[in-house]
């Protein structure tokens, strides 16, 4: 306790003597520009959307988690904004029929057959400066494939994101990304009645849990927030 008190006194002294020098971690982090997800509840939870130039992991746990709805909502929002996104589809499961022609024209779809292939494809896309948003859908890939991914991949990609300001959203069945700026758990338990509802109604039923946030980590890393 004595040491902690001394540290606090030392900080106060430094702040008083050298007001222009940053001391400790109490300074607010810079605001992150965000990419709206197309789902209002998720945007509120993430304080604007997916942080630009960072990884965001959407963990869809269990059956009917709603991860496909997040992907399609994001595509519709991006298309409405006149932007485009690259989808690395780890198990070739994207539903083309759910979107109209104009929305699809804003999509680059890479149909992979394995997680290994998906990571190679994503690597090429992240090295390309043209894609502001890359979505990697690994929800249906077997856990054995995902556990083989080296942690150094995320470190290497983080350096690329810093340079290109590319936003990456990874949809996975369990947490695989180390160093993600945001991690959202999705557990909506969508049932068969979902198929008779409109996409907007289904989006309203999605349940998110924020496990990690770039801004929350700066203020209070221990807290998790829920919506839905």
């Amino acid at each position, binding site marked *: 306790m004595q040491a902690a008190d001394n540290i606090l006194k030392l900080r106060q002294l430094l702040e008083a003597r050298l007001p222009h020098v940053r001391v400790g971690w109490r300074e607010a982090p810079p605001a992150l520009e965000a990419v709206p997800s197309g789902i209002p509840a998720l945007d509120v939870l993430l304080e604007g959307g997916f942080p630009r130039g960072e990884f965001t992991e959407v963990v869809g746990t269990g059956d009917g988690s709603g*991860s496909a709805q997040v992907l399609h909502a994001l595509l519709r929002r991006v298309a409405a904004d006149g932007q485009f996104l690259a989808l690395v589809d780890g198990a070739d499961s994207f539903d*083309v029929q759910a979107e109209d022609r104009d*929305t699809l024209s*804003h999509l680059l779809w*890479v149909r992979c057959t394995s997680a290994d292939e998906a990571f190679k494809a994503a690597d*090429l896309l992240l090295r390309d400066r043209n894609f502001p948003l890359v979505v990697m859908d690994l929800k249906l890939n077997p856990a054995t494939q995902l556990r083989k991914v080296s942690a150094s991949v995320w470190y290497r990609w983080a350096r690329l994101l810093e340079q290109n300001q590319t936003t990456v959203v990874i949809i996975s069945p369990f947490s695989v990304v180390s160093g993600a700026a945001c991690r959202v758990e999705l557990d909506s338990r969508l049932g*068969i009645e979902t*198929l008779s509802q*409109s*996409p907007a109604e289904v989006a309203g039923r999605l349940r998110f849990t924020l496990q990690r946030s770039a801004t929350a980590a700066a203020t209070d890393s221990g807290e998790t927030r829920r919506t839905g």
Partner: protein
Amino acid sequence: MFAVVSLPQFVLQAALRHEPELWKKPVALVDPTRNTPTVCDFTPAAADAGVTLHLTPTQAMARCGSVMIRHRSPARETAAMEAVIHCAYGFSPHIEATAPGVVTLDLRALSRLIDATTETLMVWANELRHALRDQGLQASVGVGPTPNLARHAARWGSGVEIINAPRAFLDGLPVAALEPSADAATILDKWGIRTVGELLALGQESLADRLGLEALALFSAASTSVTRPLHLAQPAERFEESFEFDPAIETLEPLLFILRRFVDQLCARLEFTAVVAETVCLRLQLENGQVVERPLRVPQPTREADTLFRMLSTHLESVRTEAAILSVGLTISPIQAQQRQFGLFETVLRDPQQFQETLARLAALVGSDRIGTPVREDSHRPDAFKLIPPDFENAPPASGRKTPSLLESPAIRRLRPPALAAVNSDPSNGQPLAVRCSLADGKLKVAIGPWRTSGNWWENTGWSREEWDAATLRGKVVRLVRQEAGWTIEGLVD
């Protein structure tokens, strides 16, 4: 005005085209098609070592222990000739494949060369030679008022020969340039006639009295005014190169080295003929006789060598062969380049060139049929779509959903290919009661359907299906499909 491109030692050049370093070493070319294979050409180093024509390989090796024996290859000669024609076509649209290793170009009506000075012609001819050098071919170029004179200039000149004074040029040209018969050559030699100028001084009629009809042919070949119509040739729409490794290779580096050379040369040829690559086909022949062939569709047709090479190298990084590679072949299928107007002030893509390259590399990685922008097909068949090259520059704005809300349906996860399932169904109405599959197992809590669709019944590709949306007791929602072949699961709600 005509120009002739002549490749000395064409057969040997074709054989050593992709191994230029061998020109400094003793190499003898053997024609294997003869009953007794003999040396048909050789490098200067081999000549210095005592190798001569018509020696058997054994005799050649007896004279020079380090001589390397290479076999004459008609396929390589054809490829080299096609390369010459493609290059020539880039300099004049009117060309003639006169002989193996000889191409004649009609320079009349070429705007660049109208009233051209000797210097201009020299620059033009050197550009042609450099283009051929990039293809691995050493050529000499002759320019003259008639095709025959231009050919004499190319054959007997050094490098580039421009004929400004035809008569003076003929005065110094050896009689052998006119290719007289052996008898006529002997007679002319006995007369002391060494040059064409001396031959022409004899007069056509007097020479015809003594040598017969051959004298007319000799005078025609030496004419400074008589031209002949060219047999115009069109460049082949085939861009192909191949190389045999000796010995067979087991690593990627030598393969990429030769492929880079191929791509550079083929892209230059594409440029000369104003086309772009649509498909690149890579063919590897293995030592065990197996042939690995992979066509790679270029998402955005291009003739950028870097783009095509990275596409190939990306593909090869994932290729594992069962045996060493004996030979490699690369074939490019061309297509006319599409012209497109770019935006005046801004483009959607930061770096369109990089984008094309990335697309090409992705196509090499996952397959050209698995990357692109999806477009729904005009069919009632579920999940009917095709992929087209992305065109974000002209993508229409998706300002809102145009589909009536009643027809909107939430997205599901498609299973491609569908998972086979064993389904117990109610015999009275066909309603599925239980499912057994790797994805879902157990009794069904609810099954909604059926939705029956069919199409293309008037063709061999007719289809008919029955869809059910079902939920298991554990809450998993699947889309069951019954077709003639049986039950499958085509999608999951997620």
